[in-house]
Structures are given as structure tokens and as C-alpha cells.
């Protein structure tokens, strides 16, 4: 935490006024310009936001909104309320990724992993964290060559089973990207229609019978999953 002595009482009051929304538009704009260049001051604003939110936490009584509100939100975000493939699939039920894979952590992993040289120009990467079991993967997609390189960091397929990689874009049904080798690295060539879906997609690995899912959709447990991030 930033040392409070870094900042004058005047600035502290200004940070609080900004957090409270008390400043005039001009003053507010001046403060915002400063936030970008003055980390100590920014820390004060964040600290005030947290303190004041604590006040709401302590003193604002919960009031249950009418159920129509949730329906309106769902309609605005997801269109007509119907059971989408997404919500029907038990595929996602067990998915609980407990933290975001930060770009920094991914960058660090990339430096440690024996990647082909030279590095792709604008790689898209996904760190697939364990969901069921301990399997873990790092996937790097090079849009220039349409090659997806999947490195197994931990966990192998169960005896008599295979691991299948899926891409999930938005609310769409998962698209199979192929089966993973038992070796440490699998390189898959992605066709153009799937390649376009990589930004903002989620990659997931499922447990499947030999030869892969017979249905074209995941049938077994989700072993690992993670969002695609561009570095």
C-alpha cells in the first residue's frame, strides 16, 4: 500500500471528493488526467472507494428487487430466455476456474516453455487450468500459420481414454479442434473458420473415448479449461 505520507492532506481530500463524485466536471477531468500519471494519488482514490464501499456494506440494507428485473437483464444480455446449448450442456457445470490467468503469468510461462523459435508475431495463448483431475496445458496459437501448439504441463489421458481439445466462442456449441497426443506437445492445424473464433474464446480439454467424442460434442468430464488471451 502506498505510504499515506506520500500525499498531502489536500490531495487526500481531493481524492475523497473525486471518489464521492463531488467535483465539478472540470475538476473531475483534471483529477482524471492526474490519475494516469500519479500512482500515489490513484492509490488514494482506490483506497477511498474501498472505504466508502465498506460504508455501504455496513449500512445499506439489502432490498430484493422484483424478479422481473433479472428477466429483463437476461433478455438484454442473452436475448429470449430459452435453454441454450450452453446452459443445457453439463459440459460447463463443473467448470470452476478460480482465477484469471494473468498475461504476466502467461508471459512468464512462455519464457520458460521450450517454444519454437522465433516466437509467433502476435500469439494468442491460453493457459488451461485443471477442472477435473490434474491435467494442465499451455496452448499457443499463431494466426499467421494457423498452428496451435498445445503443451502438456501436467496430467496424461486416463488408460483407454483420449483427451480432446475444444474451442468455445460465446454461446456457441463447442467446436472440436482435435485430439491431443500422449506426447508432451501436440501441434494442430486450425482451419480458417475456427481460427477466426480464437480471440475471446475459451479452450477446454475433455475426457473422451478412443477416437474422440462420437457425438461431435463433448461427452466426458472437462479436464482443463482457460480463456484465450492475446499477448
Amino acid at each position: 500500500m502506498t505510504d499515506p505520507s506520500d500525499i498531502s492532506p489536500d490531495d487526500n481530500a481531493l481524492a475523497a471528493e473525486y471518489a464521492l463524485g463531488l467535483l465539478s466536471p472540470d475538476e473531475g477531468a483534471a483529477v482524471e488526467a492526474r490519475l494516469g500519471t500519479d500512482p500515489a494519488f490513484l492509490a488514494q482514490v482506490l483506497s477511498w472507494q474501498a472505504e466508502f464501499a465498506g460504508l455501504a456494506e455496513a449500512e445499506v440494507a439489502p432490498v430484493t428487487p422484483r424478479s422481473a428485473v433479472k428477466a429483463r437483464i437476461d433478455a438484454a444480455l442473452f436475448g429470449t430466455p430459452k435453454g441454450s446449448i450452453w446452459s443445457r450442456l453439463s459440459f460447463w457445470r463443473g467448470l470452476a476456474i478460480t482465477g484469471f490467468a494473468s498475461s504476466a503469468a502467461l508471459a512468464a510461462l512462455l519464457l520458460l516453455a521450450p517454444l519454437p523459435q522465433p516466437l509467433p508475431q502476435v500469439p494468442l495463448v491460453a493457459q488451461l487450468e485443471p477442472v477435473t483431475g490434474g491435467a494442465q496445458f499451455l496452448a499457443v496459437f499463431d494466426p499467421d500459420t494457423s498452428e496451435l501448439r498445445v503443451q502438456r504441463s501436467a496430467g496424461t489421458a486416463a488408460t483407454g481414454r483420449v483427451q480432446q481439445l475444444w474451442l468455445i466462442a460465446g454461446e456457441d456449441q463447442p467446436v472440436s479442434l482435435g485430439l491431443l497426443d500422449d506426447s508432451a506437445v501436440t501441434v494442430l492445424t486450425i482451419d480458417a473458420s475456427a481460427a477466426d473464433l480464437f480471440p475471446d474464446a475459451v479452450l477446454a480439454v475433455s475426457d473422451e473415448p478412443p477416437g474422440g467424442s462420437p457425438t461431435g460434442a463433448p461427452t466426458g468430464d472437462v479436464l482443463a479449461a482457460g480463456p484465450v488471451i492475446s499477448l
Partner: protein
Amino acid sequence: MPDQHQIESLLARINLRDRTAFAELYAATSAKLFGVCLRVLKDRSLAEDVLQEVYIKIWNKADRYQVTGHSPMTWLITIARNQSIDRLRAAGPPTSDIDEVAPIASARLGPEGQAIAADEARRIVGCLDELDETRAAAVRGAYLEGQSYADLAQRFDVPLNTMRTWLRRSLVNLKECLSR
């Protein structure tokens, strides 16, 4: 109310477009956030509109949550409160999201800054108790009800500049107490 880690995990799943997690987050937090909106707006129908905007923002910006280093409830309450203020002052410029105006990574609060709001809640209430009653009421009015300096000056029947001077002094005193 689920604990901080549960909400954090729900936000992570929402970031992966998990609607079930979104429904769970709504179930767990909407009453609190609706309370925050209602306290500012004092009108159920307006507060419902704003609550809708708040959850749409949460769905669309879940990836921004960690950037602020805030606890999950701080992040959610701050969105609800600022969205309500913007509605209250519909004529004025919207409140910027802090992560959009500053490179927050460089100023992120340490782990102690992310501590659950429960501690913060107790602390700020205790520190407000150390202020004069009317001054504490002014701080509460500004945050919880979104009162402007003009509103506060009228409420406490003092000139605008006087209002600002003594609210700023109260904030400095408050900060001293909070930093102890």
C-alpha cells in the same frame, strides 16, 4: 451472502461467459446492490433500471475486476453506486470507471488493500463516529445518497464554500483516523 472467494470465483466464471455463474452472482448480490441504488435514487422503478445497467456492466466488464485490486464487493458496490449517481445527475458527465482513466497496475493496492470489506466497513463506521454528528451525516449523504455540495449546503443551511471547506476538513480527519 457468499464470502469474498466465492464471489471472486463467480466473477472468474462470468469472465468465461458462464451464465450459471452470472445467475448465482445475481442471486447472491442483487439485494445489496439494489439497496445501494435505491438509497441514492429513492425510486424503485429508477433503481431497477439502474440495477439492470449495473449487471449488464458486470457481465461485460468482469475481466476488468481484478485490474482495480479491489475486493469483489467493493468493485460491485462501486459500480452500483456510480451508476446510480450518474442517473441522479443525468445532465452531467458520466462517472468514469477508474480502470479506464488510469494505468492501475502500477498503483494496485497490496494484499492488505484487497482485504474483505468487512474490516473496512467496521473501520469507516468507527471513524465516522469520531466526527461531529452533522459532519458524519454529510459524508454519509455524499456517498450513500449521492448528495452534491449544493444539496449538502442546502441541507445543512450553510453557504456552498463553507460546506466544501468543512466537508474537506472532515475527510482529512476521517483519513487520519482510517490510517491509524
